[in-house]
């Protein structure tokens, strides 16, 4: 097709365009025509189609996500809320922290290494775009069954990709999750999160203001990455079946991204940047339309000036390219030279490609002709919004009626011991060191806690000891049984993990992984999960600062378990006060905080021993979570406890074994009155933690719990070199270590 200019489009209203092949619905295409008052040019169609995609426009999820704003608790900590590249919270002493989680699920299934690697790259650019220095990454992961052959293809590649990219960027990996479940067989979930730190005055936003300011594209050259669709526009025939020479897979270049981080931060430090935007999904289409629509004026862009890796790219393809490791900055004219000099210092290619105007149009030129002339808001913000039908699945009642509490329990002590071994050695409860040892957790020299601690913790200020903690959690089994409660349990667990290390939870980010929004059952799960999370955040006083939605995670008609992954960020005044997981001192007393009930729905025990999923998930009591958190934080601050570990999937026995193995010390446990050994060891009641109390602090600690009304039950002592449950069984640390640490290498090596 010859160049499709704006003029040409106005003159040829009837030229058919491949809007369908680009993923637009007919009414959406008609909206575009209505907005423009003519047919779009090929380039305009390219822009609208990517920006109005589910991924970029949140068209199915928007109506639900609004609750995060509407129900947001009052929080003085919130500096930048939902809608920017990432939210920003105040952590005191003039520091601000930004954090976010994103998904790279589908690319990681196609090409595990590169898919996961570019996922890390994308989330880190979001953090830089806020003005922050990235200080850590986390990686919540979910794979198919541990023993499925395809898991052996996907998992090692994903882990190597996350490590390959993150390690090369110099970002410590401080936490994450690894979950195996057959429901993720064709849809692994590769979520990646990042945290960044800045001073308050360094916060930057994605907006282009000030007529005459220059738009600078810098970083990698633009290639034909991820533009399968746009290539149709470039062809004569609009033939979608023609094999595309454009790569379907993006290859990451972490070295380039490291340079991008350094030169961007240097430009920030010299106050050279008016507005900034990373290039992720939808590439230049997204960056230019968002920068322009968030600013005060319009923008012109000359596409011929974009540095290309592939000279055969058409203008439509350049606009849609998702080539990695690129950023876009708006810079005042007199500062351009200095900005370019900094890029040159870091060997980063930088080019002025456009200018902010005092109009209100985004105009894009190619070979001197105008090929785009749009109101940028209509591209970036006025995408379609759907109220998709939702319906509670008809199987939900039967699932909940299939009560896990009725499953046969171990008949005697020998059977109990056997089941403990099976649960501890099950892929989901076993040590993930084989995976996390592939991640650098020390780089930057500020890592206070990393895996396998309850939350990662980074020192922010070496003088004062100010630090931040981050934990991510999600349990798809719970959410399948009850999405509302499941989302709250994910929030509660991440909140508890942060508090267990002694940090005060401040804010939340999330990554909502679900099946197809066109399935009313999935949409119901989604709406319930969002409602649960929003209600929970209001109650706990931790606002949602941003997040990500990943839909269409399904194989054929079968969706994954609804999997809301929740990240909680906390702050600690002095990292010297942090509480680790390991039982480090013999003789210390073990206390169980919280109430233990018979709650086995969705439990690890029901999964491992009975391959069962049914019943109701554990009940949530967020006031109790808050009280537990307050106690753990006070106890850490006042030096009353030396170790703490939250209880979650796998129950008390799993947590105690982990703490014992990490500290290299055994424990003697006594089943508390009123509980049977089985429930004591395996129940997954929420709102609980186990703590190790020095004898000298026992009274002070139990007095505090008593005064504030938190049940604290003495359950044993750190002692010997075995995990012993009195009157039931004992397992030596050596045997436990073999079971716990041998499973994952055995599956993957």
């Amino acid at each position: 097709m010859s160049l499709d200019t704006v003029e040409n489009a106005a003159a040829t209203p009837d030229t058919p365009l491949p809007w369908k092949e680009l993923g637009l619905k007919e009414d959406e295409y008609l909206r575009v025509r209505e907005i423009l008052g003519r047919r779009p040019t090929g380039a305009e169609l390219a822009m609208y189609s990517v920006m109005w995609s589910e991924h970029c426009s949140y068209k199915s999820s928007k109506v639900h996500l609004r609750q995060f704003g509407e129900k947001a608790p009052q929080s003085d900590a919130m500096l930048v809320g939902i809608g920017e590249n990432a939210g920003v919270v105040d952590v005191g002493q003039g520091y601000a922290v930004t954090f976010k989680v994103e998904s790279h699920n589908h690319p990681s299934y196609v090409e595990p290494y590169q898919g996961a690697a570019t996922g890390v790259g994308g989330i880190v650019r979001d953090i830089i775009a806020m003005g922050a220095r990235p200080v850590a990454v986390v990686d919540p992961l979910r794979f198919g069954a541990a023993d499925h052959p395809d898991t052996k293809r996907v998992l090692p590649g994903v882990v190597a990709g996350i490590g390959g990219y993150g390690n090369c960027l110099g970002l410590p990996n401080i936490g994450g999750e690894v979950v195996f479940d057959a429901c993720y067989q064709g849809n692994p979930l590769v979520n990646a999160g990042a945290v960044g730190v800045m001073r308050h005055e360094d916060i930057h936003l994605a907006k282009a203001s000030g007529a005459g300011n220059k738009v600078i594209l810098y970083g990698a050259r633009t290639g034909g990455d991820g533009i399968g669709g746009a290539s149709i526009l470039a062809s004569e025939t609009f033939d979608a079946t023609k094999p595309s020479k454009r790569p379907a897979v993006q290859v990451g270049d972490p070295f380039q991204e490291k340079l991008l981080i350094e030169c961007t931060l240097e430009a920030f430090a010299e106050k050279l940047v008016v507005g900034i935007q990373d290039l992720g999904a939808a590439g230049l289409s997204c960056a230019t339309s968002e920068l322009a629509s968030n600013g005060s004026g319009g923008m012109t862009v000359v596409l011929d000036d974009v540095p290309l890796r592939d000279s055969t790219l058409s203008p439509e393809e350049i606009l849609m390219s998702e080539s990695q490791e690129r950023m876009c900055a708006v810079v005042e004219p007199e500062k351009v030279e200095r900005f370019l000099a900094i890029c040159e210092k870091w060997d980063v290619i930088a080019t002025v490609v456009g200018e902010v105007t005092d109009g209100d149009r985004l105009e894009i030129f190619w070979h001197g002709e105008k090929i785009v002339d749009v109101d940028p808001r209509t591209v970036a913000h006025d995408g379609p919004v759907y109220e998709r039908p939702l319906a509670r699945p008809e199987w939900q009642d039967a699932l909940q009626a299939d009560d896990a509490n009725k499953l046969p329990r171990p008949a005697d002590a020998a059977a109990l011991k056997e089941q403990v071994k099976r649960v501890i050695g099950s892929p989901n409860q076993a040590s993930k060191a084989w995976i996390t040892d592939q991640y650098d957790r020390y780089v930057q020299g500020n890592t206070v806690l990393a895996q396998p601690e309850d939350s990662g913790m980074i020192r922010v200020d070496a003088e004062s000891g100010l630090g931040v903690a981050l934990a991510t959690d999600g349990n798809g089994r719970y959410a399948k049984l009850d999405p509302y409660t499941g989302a709250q349990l994910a929030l509660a667990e991440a909140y508890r993990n942060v508090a267990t290390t002694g940090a005060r939870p401040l804010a939340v980010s999330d990554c909502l992984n679900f099946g197809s929004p066109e399935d009313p059952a999935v949409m119901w799960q989604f709406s319930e999960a969002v409602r649960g999370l929003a209600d929970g955040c209001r109650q706990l006083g931790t606002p949602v600062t941003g997040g990500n939605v990943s839909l269409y995670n399904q194989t054929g008609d079968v969706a994954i378990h609804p999997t809301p992954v929740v990240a909680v960020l906390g702050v600690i005044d002095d990292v010297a006060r942090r509480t680790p997981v390991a039982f480090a001192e013999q003789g210390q007393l073990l206390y169980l905080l919280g109430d233990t009930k018979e709650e086995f729905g969705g439990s690890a025990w029901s999964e491992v021993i009975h391959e069962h999923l049914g019943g109701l998930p554990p009940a949530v009591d967020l006031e109790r979570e808050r009280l537990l958190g307050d106690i753990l934080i006070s106890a850490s601050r006042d030096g009353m406890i030396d170790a703490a570990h939250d209880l979650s999937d796998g129950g008390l026995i799993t947590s105690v074994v982990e703490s014992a193995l990490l500290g290299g010390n055994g424990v003697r446990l006594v089943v508390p009155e009123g509980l049977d050994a089985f429930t004591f060891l395996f129940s997954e009641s929420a709102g609980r933690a186990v703590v190790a109390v020095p004898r000298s602090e026992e009274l002070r600690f139990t007095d505090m719990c008593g005064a504030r009304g938190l049940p604290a039950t003495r359950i044993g002592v750190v002692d010997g070199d075995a995990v012993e449950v009195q009157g039931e069984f004992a397992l030596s640390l050596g045997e436990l270590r073999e079971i716990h640490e041998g499973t994952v290498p055995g599956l993957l090596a």
Partner: protein
Amino acid sequence: MTARIGVVTFPGTLDDRDTQRAVGIAGAEAVPLWHRDKDLKQVDAVVLPGGFSYGDYLRAGAISRFSPVMESVIAGAKSGMPVLGICNGFQVLTEAHLLPGAMLQNDRMRFVCREQKLRVENAGTAWTTEFTAGQEIRIPLKNMDGRYTADERTLDALEAEGRVVFRYVDTNPNGSLRDIAGVTNEAGNVVGLMPHPEHAVEPLVGSGGTDGLGFFTSILRKLVSA
């Protein structure tokens, strides 16, 4: 007057800030050096820190070795200036032929990050006098290309001349020949090792120990008493 210790930044260097901090904690003055500058700013010693300079593309250290700053480092090293290469810095030193041998991908073909036990074999180099021979220390190790390799003759010579400075104990994490974790040149002023002493200088962060501090106090003592 305290010693001035240069810390080089190549594109892709990661542990430069940590190394500067470690130098400062030891009581010396850290002087940042940039790869494009031949000027060593009159430093008394140089550290090449860890990271992925040039992405470790081609081979770890292979591209950095040709940078302008390395011309001066090579000249300085040959005339006795103390030089320490940590991880990627060690790789640069072997690529620059200031240290014998070469580094290959770990035998397990995965990145490895762990707390590593080492034995100090030579406490006489510029960077190890605060240790005693035979002492065991724990510092973090993290690398993809850490398998130290040289031909048998070279290895025998290194052993005979006491130029193996550190050896891995308990676990050989990357398949290094003869468990070698670090070596020195004939003069003992240039030392390279794979593990990261700069991540073990404060009790609270990194691996939690302070066994790495000895590297920096060793050089400080040598320079100040010289």
